């Protein structure tokens, strides 16, 4: 509940302040966001399965976002940034879908 409120508050704040993404962060933020979304879905799933742990959630949230951004950063240094970010997005997308499927199965039994 608090997480949901936080999400809504964040969106509201963003709309209100209209922040500018700093230039050095621009290539990495989208990937970090996708990673964070994945962590969020994972958290909801864990809660529904009754194995949710605050510490695990915080660590995986931050860790996933940082690692995803780091992979893209390394890829950019190696000259394969676009390919690597595509790869990261694909993997995270698959994880989000499987998490969403688990949540759906838990909630609706279908």
């Amino acid at each position, binding site marked *: *509940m*608090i*997480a*949901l*409120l*936080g*999400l*809504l*508050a*964040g*969106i*509201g*704040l*963003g*709309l209100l302040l*209209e*922040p*500018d*993404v700093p230039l050095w962060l*621009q290539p990495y*933020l*989208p990937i*970090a*966001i996708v990673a*964070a*979304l994945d962590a*969020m879905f994972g*958290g*909801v799933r864990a*809660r*529904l399965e*009754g194995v949710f*742990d*605050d*510490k695990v*959630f*915080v660590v995986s*949230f*931050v860790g996933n976002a940082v690692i995803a951004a780091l992979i893209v950063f390394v890829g950019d240094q190696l000259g394969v*940034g*676009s390919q690597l970010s595509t790869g990261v997005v694909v993997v995270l997308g698959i994880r989000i879908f499987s998490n969403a499927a688990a949540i759906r199965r*838990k*909630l*609706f*039994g279908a």
Partner: protein
Amino acid sequence: MSGDQASQEDREDRAGLRELLRPRLSRGQLAGGLLCLLLGFAVVAQVETTRRDTTFAAAREDELVGVLSDLSQRSERLRGDLRELEDTRARLERDGQGTTALEDARERATAYGLLAGTLPAEGPGIELTVEDPAGRVRAVHLLDALQELRDAGAEVVQVNDVRAGTGTYFVDAAGGVVADGRFLRAPYRFLVIGDAHTMTTALDIPGGVIKTLEGAGARVGVSARPKVEIRATRPG
């Protein structure tokens, strides 16, 4: 699973959903909420940035290189134009009597006269003859031929004794075609000034003008001429 089990699990899941949305105050919960706040904020910031500047921010290096080389080519061309225009201006400024200006104006008048069809012209080009023994060539065929020739870079066109201009029209009539108010009878003879090779190729493509005309039973001949004389003019 049996229906009994399913309904029981269903109840449990409803409880799970309520449990999920029940506010609990603990340090971990607050941390999760804070992270989600950060996520929402970042999502909005990113979406706003993407919406504001989609042209170049999202483009990768190779695309940008392409855009850049396009731009430098165009600026090179424009610089050439600029040099030419500056030359003209210098010449115009040098001569006080206005002979250069007059010369320029005459040149331009001639070019426009040729385009508008008010002046006779001669130059290399082709002659296109359309014989119509079956009597099935219609105005639309001639219009197609004229359009094709123009697309292929024809500068001056004369059909029989009608000089084709921008407003030239063709209308079907008994036993022939009316063009710009004048009655034309087969064979139709197009005299065209322009690049002979390009125009011949354009007329000759599969399914093109010549094939269509032959499909209508016409005999079509195209010959390149080193010098085509066009005497017909349009009233200025």
